[in-house]
């Protein structure tokens, strides 16, 4: 332990503690900007500067280790002035168009400027030009970038892709795509982790909200909405709701308040995915030598992009089953159009996703098979739907709760947990057990795959009726790479592997509401497990709507029709 004083307050902290952490433990707030624990400790923004007695310079609290006898002042005039000028320098290169920025009210730079009582910037404004092609699902405003390096580090350290790079020197240094090349040429998975780690509005998803409003206002269009599992764990954050206010049923009411015609649940098609993907897995397992093994899940488009870009040799290993989003679209524009008795062309299918890569996925020709435009016409992230909800000026908190529409609004607990890492695997195992043994396991029997590994992956070997199944679960593309490399080196062998591009799975998705400095994947994932537990149905194969779909339309899993609408040829889907 070392003893020091911060602002005349004596405290003891373990050796190696930074001044920032020490101050925090004593309830003293030191403003920070670029700092992200363990992810971005670059001490570049020089905002957290503090005065240390005996030192002729100010020191960055985030990167200075507390030493015995240190006397620290976090709020001295010197420190305040320096902080203020450094922030003003940042603002001189920032477009400061707060009223029209999606991060307004949730921006660390804005907060900092407010907290430091900055009401003017004495330096001439010099704003970098925006040259980004805003048609990409992922957009970047050079005019807002503060060069904190977080995007670089999260992409490099967590996702192992290194799409972003700091190029050039001095005032000319800027964050660019790799060698300054066009973004579409970069090996970007579109996971959106750089967006959720950006302290300002420099990295954002493409805003598609107007498209939905146009569709709602078009009398010829029937707007059909699907809501991904992970959205329900986070949507309330965009409105500052408490847990009690942000219930699933109130979410349904809120989305209906937007004016969409039908609010359905992606859980329905997640159950359908389990039926198809689970059957595919059993088919692959029981016909050794006929199919490439192990089989990888393919419901995460970030992961699919990663696999196709970085490990093209793995493409035949990807499950041919489409993602729940795309299955839903295919069903909505065929089966459901028939149920409604309308021309599928009139159906406008919108999905609300915790994900930026889904915006890309819905545009891929190889996953559009219903023959009525795109199967999913557009995708909104959780953040975008939050913005839309604010814009309708309805007191959502006091809306009475409502149910999903039927029949595509029925989902099981197995589907809800798709939103957390390990969820797809657990749901698949629940049904695979049933398919192999003919009876249900305990719904919580496969809990071992839950939870996030920071570095590495979860693996387990199961025995079901004498069949040995070796499974692995990884979230975060850096972990995916570790797993694949270990597979390639022959160190490990698996039969079935679930991979999610975002750490913690969709709960921590790149389209989820942002709370700067907090990793919320775990907390949001927990909410999903609670929902699973509360639901009466916890097995995909018991979803009555899915069973009815097979009975009336799809026939059975892996049928000809299912292959046509619910599967894709992974080798033809190229980037």
């Amino acid at each position: 332990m070392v003893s020091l004083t911060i602002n005349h307050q004596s405290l003891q902290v373990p050796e190696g503690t930074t001044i920032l952490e020490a101050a925090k433990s004593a309830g003293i707030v030191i403003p920070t900007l670029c700092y992200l624990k363990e992810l971005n400790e670059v001490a570049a923004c020089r905002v957290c500067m503090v005065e240390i007695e005996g030192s002729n310079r100010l020191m960055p609290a985030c990167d200075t280790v507390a030493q015995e006898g240190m006397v620290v002042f976090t709020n001295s005039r010197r420190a305040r002035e320096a902080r203020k000028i450094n922030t003003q320098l940042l603002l001189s290169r920032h477009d400061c168009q707060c009223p029209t920025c999606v991060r307004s009210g949730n921006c660390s730079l804005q907060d900092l400027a407010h907290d430091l009582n900055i009401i003017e910037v004495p330096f001439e404004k010099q704003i970098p030009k925006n040259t980004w092609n805003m048609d990409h699902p992922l957009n970047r405003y050079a005019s807002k970038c503060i060069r904190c390096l977080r995007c670089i580090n999260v992409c490099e350290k967590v996702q192992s892709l290194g799409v972003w790079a700091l190029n050039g020197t001095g005032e000319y240094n800027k964050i660019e795509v790799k060698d300054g090349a066009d973004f579409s040429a970069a090996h970007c998975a579109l996971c959106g982790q750089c967006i959720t780690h950006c302290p300002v509005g420099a990295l954002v998803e493409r805003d598609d909200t107007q498209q939905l409003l146009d569709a709602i206002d078009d009398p010829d269009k029937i707007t059909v909405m699907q809501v991904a599992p992970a959205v329900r764990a986070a949507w309330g954050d965009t409105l500052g709701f408490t847990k009690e206010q942000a219930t699933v049923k109130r979410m349904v009411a809120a989305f209906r308040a937007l004016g969409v015609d039908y609010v359905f649940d992606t859980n329905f098609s997640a159950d359908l995915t389990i039926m198809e993907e689970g059957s595919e897995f059993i088919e692959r397992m029981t016909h050794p030598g006929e199919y490439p093994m192990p089989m990888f899940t393919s419901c995460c488009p970030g992961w699919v992009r990663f696999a196709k870009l970085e490990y093209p040799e793995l493409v035949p290993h990807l499950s041919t089953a489409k993602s729940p989003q795309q299955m839903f679209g295919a069903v909505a524009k065929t089966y459901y159009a028939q149920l409604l008795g309308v021309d599928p062309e009139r159906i406008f299918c919108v999905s609300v996703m915790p994900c930026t890569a889904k915006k890309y996925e819905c545009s891929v020709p190889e996953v559009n098979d219903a023959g009525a435009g795109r199967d999913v016409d557009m995708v909104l992230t959780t953040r975008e739907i939050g913005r839309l909800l604010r814009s309708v000026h309805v007191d959502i908190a006091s809306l009475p709760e409502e149910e999903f529409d039927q029949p595509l609004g029925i989902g099981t607990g197995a589907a809800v947990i798709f939103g957390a890492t390990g969820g797809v695997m657990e749901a698949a195992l629940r049904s695979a057990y049933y398919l192999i043994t003919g009876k249900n396991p305990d719904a919580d029997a496969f809990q071992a795959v839950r939870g996030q590994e920071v570095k590495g992956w979860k693996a387990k070997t199961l025995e079901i009726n004498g069949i040995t199944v070796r499974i692995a679960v990884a979230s975060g593309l850096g972990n995916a790479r570790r797993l694949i490399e270990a597979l390639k080196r022959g160190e490990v062998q698996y039969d079935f592997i679930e991979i999610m591009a975002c750490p913690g799975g969709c709960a921590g998705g790149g389209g989820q509401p942002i709370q700067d400095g907090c990793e919320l994947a775990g907390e949001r994932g927990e909410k999903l497990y609670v929902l699973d537990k509360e639901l009466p149905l916890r097995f995909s194969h018991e979803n009555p709507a899915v069973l009815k779909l097979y009975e009336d339309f799809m026939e059975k899993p892996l049928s000809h029709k299912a292959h046509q609408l619910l599967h894709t040829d992974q080798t033809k889907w190229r980037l």
Partner: protein
Amino acid sequence: MPFDHFLTRRILKSTYVCEVKILAGEAGTDYKPLIEPYRQMRGGIIEALHALMRAYHFIPPKALKDLAKAFRMTEAEVYGVASFYSYFTTKEQGAYVIRVCRSAPCHLENAQGVMELLEKELGIHAGQTTEDGKFTLEWTECVGQCAHAPVYTINREPVTEPKNVFSEQIPLLLEQLRQN
């Protein structure tokens, strides 16, 4: 002032000046053999980049990929390194890279005049390359030859002539290099 033959001979004989671009980096070029000697060297990427610069006078895009593989770095990292140092460039350069020093001691001795003369003679501005691909002209910081200010270098070889003759010397020297 007569033409200084000794100076020209020295410049033309300099190994660094002779380090002219003899290779044209193209799409199909394999850069691995050039990189190989530095692959096992810890931190050898800087030396490998120097080797590429000597051979091609720039870092071709494909070489970045080869470097990334050889040193187990991402391409973004390699580019980040290459773009940090002013002696590395991913832009094609001429056979003779002329750098005019603009640091204080040379600045005081009319480095601007030297640059203007070179710009006039070559018909390009600082930062550009002549159309025939022979010359690239740029500013540089102190090259450590201040006693001879103003100084410029040709492929890193300092040209340290008495300052009052540069106006006569430069056209002749350039002509010699052009024919070389």
